């Protein structure tokens, strides 16, 4: 039992913290980044590359630093505190994990150096949060698969140089088998996309595939066996998202307490009112519970037992979602009017936390998944 970071991890935390402070310490800068095409400044991305955090989760053979889930947790928590807008989660954590576990190593160096953005395209109009719910057909035609259809809410999809597309090569819409992951060059003929900001100031895209030909060599993992890779990668992304949420919640709780101490009404700081103090305490309790579960998620994501891994990740997502909702809503409430304005940071934390709750399955979804799995949470 050990909750300490190693010396390397402490260094990492410090250096990422510094980097994020320099890029995001002034909240106005963030607004500037968002005005770039695809919602982030490539210069910041290049800095990430230089600082080594784009290569962090990849092995040395893959051109990376061999960081594990704890390292990802450290980076993501700092991203959460900063409310960073770059597609780190989408490209490095999520798509990166697909490449890693799909043993498609050749694109990893391009991610690690910042040369290429890779985005996972798996959501369809009716799939909601079910990873097995994939219809988009990939029909074999000689040495290529031909893709036809649409993918939605592709995180980081506007800037993507490559898409990892979850396609159906056999079976029916919700079958577990028959899902094939294909690496698709975003410049392939027949691809069109529409990028847009998301509610929380990040970016995503709708992507259409019109008779897009993809060489069979671009299969990630094995044909028809894409789901376990997808599930593993999404679990890793959820663990990262949990850490991001903790960073955001921690910052938001601090900000709210600070506000209560300085904001005066009726001649006194409103933080002198017991009801508001107790509310703040309840927020702190929710934060600490969330922090514990983010750690749990990070330390469970490498669990060899897939069911145990999935359960741990679902449990963490539920706690994070509940805490995020409570802390987000209460922070806005305690701030009063200013909490719902665009110019003030608290509302942006609230929006990001709200979207985190919705991503990769909301709390209800993961509760039901856990209840159905029948396995207890590991004691």
């Amino acid at each position: 039992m050990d909750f300490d970071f190693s010396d390397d991890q402490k260094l990492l935390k410090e250096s990422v913290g510094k980097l994020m402070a320099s890029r995001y310490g002034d909240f106005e800068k963030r607004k500037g980044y968002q005005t770039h095409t695809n919602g982030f400044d490539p210069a910041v991305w290049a800095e990430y590359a230089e600082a080594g955090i784009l290569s962090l989760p990849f092995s040395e053979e893959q051109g990376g630093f061999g960081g594990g889930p704890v390292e990802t947790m450290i980076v993501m928590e700092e991203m959460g505190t900063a409310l960073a807008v770059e597609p780190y989660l989408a490209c490095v954590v999520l798509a990166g994990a697909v490449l890693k576990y799909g043993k498609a190593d050749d694109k990893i160096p391009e991610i690690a150096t910042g040369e290429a953005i890779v985005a996972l395209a798996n959501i369809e109009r009716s799939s909601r949060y079910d990873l097995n719910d994939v219809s988009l057909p990939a029909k074999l035609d000689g040495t290529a698969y031909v893709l036809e259809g649409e993918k939605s809410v592709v995180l980081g999809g506007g800037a993507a140089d490559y898409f990892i597309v979850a396609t159906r090569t056999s079976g029916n819409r919700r079958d577990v088998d028959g899902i094939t992951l294909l690496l698709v060059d975003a410049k392939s003929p027949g691809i069109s996309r529409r990028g847009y900001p998301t509610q929380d100031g990040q970016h995503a895209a709708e992507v259409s595939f019109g008779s897009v030909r993809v060489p069979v060599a671009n299969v990630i993992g094995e044909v028809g066996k894409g789901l376990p890779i997808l599930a593993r990668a999404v679990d890793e992304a959820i663990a990262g998202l949990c850490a991001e949420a903790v960073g955001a919640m921690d910052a938001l709780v601090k900000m709210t307490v600070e506000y209560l101490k300085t904001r005066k009404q009726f001649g006194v700081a409103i933080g002198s009112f017991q009801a508001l103090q107790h509310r703040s305490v309840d927020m702190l309790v929710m934060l600490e519970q969330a922090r514990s579960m983010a750690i749990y998620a990070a330390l469970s994501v490498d669990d060899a037992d897939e069911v145990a891994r999935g359960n741990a990740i679902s449990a963490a997502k539920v706690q994070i979602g509940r805490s995020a909702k409570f802390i987000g809503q209460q922070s806005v409430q305690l701030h009063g009017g200013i909490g719902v304005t665009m110019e003030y940071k608290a509302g942006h934390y609230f929006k990001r936390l709200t979207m985190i709750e919705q991503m990769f399955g909301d709390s209800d979804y993961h509760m039901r998944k856990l209840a159905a799995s029948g396995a207890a949470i590991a004691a």
Partner: protein
Amino acid sequence: MDLNLSAEELAFRDEVRAFIAAELSPETREKLVLGREIGKHDFVEWQRKLNAKGWAVPHWPVEWGGQNWGPMQEYIFLDELQQAPAPSPLQFNCSMVGPVIATFGSEEQKKKFLPATANLDIWWCQGFSEPGAGSDLAGLKTTARREGDFYIINGQKTWTTLAQYADWIFVLARTNPQAEKKQQGISFILVDMKTPGVTVRPIQLIDGGREVNEVWFDEVKVPAENLVGQENRGWDYAKFLLTNERMGIARIGVSKQRIRRIKELAKSERYGDTQLLDQPWFREKLVSVEIELKALEITQLRVLAEARKRGKHGEADPNSSILKIKGSELQQVTTELMMDVMGPFVLPFAASMDDEDRTNEPPIGPDYAASAGPTYFNSRKISIYGGSNEIQRNIIAKAILGF
């Protein structure tokens, strides 16, 4: 005891319903259904139709267009508007400044302002809140200095809803800074927004909309005849006005309409191999809110029944604070349910959401998804404005529980 509407009440409800069905512009209705902002034009067109029917200002004195309705009729009317959904008559005009002028204003003021206010020929906004005084309204700092036949106003108002459409603003300003208590020495003054020195700066809210504003007053010269009632008595008029505001504070019709809409959408939204509405967990979430809403509706009716007994111009009923707390919570929770319907499509932000004039971009995902997130974000204000729910609890603790 009887929970049913009387025959007269039923007939009235049907009359209102028929009128809305016949007169409300389908475009306005669609914007409301889709959760989009409605623009000035929607408000004005609709209020003029209501006014033509005699329904824009039913609770005003009869000589100025009032209908002498009882609380129950007023409630039915508002509830039908909310459920339609249709815009309510602009509250700044009809529930706020209108009744104040009608009750405390001079004859000249009544003639000049009331018909135009009822018909929305004048659009009013409310100059009460200030940056330093949120829940502590009486802590306001804006001043009105008397100089001859004029008041010179200086200061800043904030959270001024739809000031960008407004022709006039009613302002609380301090005319006697030496008054003993902060509630004293405040006056209620009407200001033409075109007066030099008035500046409006929009505040963008987290949903992307620009419904509220800051309004700055820099040596704004206002004729003294624009003072309503007596100098330094403005706090009394403001209290009177805020009492008026409380009718329909729970906005039960809005929540009902949203739940109905959620059911409609959940019937067409696919969930695995079923429809979303077939999922027991989803139905239980809906039912859970419906139960509380039904309870609140009856609580609302009980408060109204008491109001009917007390007669029209009673004191503010502290029970309306109960309606505010629970009503705001339920409005907020329905917006959460709406997000549940959307799944991943809650994420995309439609840039065109913050403009009255829509671009022609197709929606991302289902066309009803775009407003779910923004409506949720925006709904957080409901438990903050008009006296935050914490302030409402203070009121109840004192006025009902006797702490």
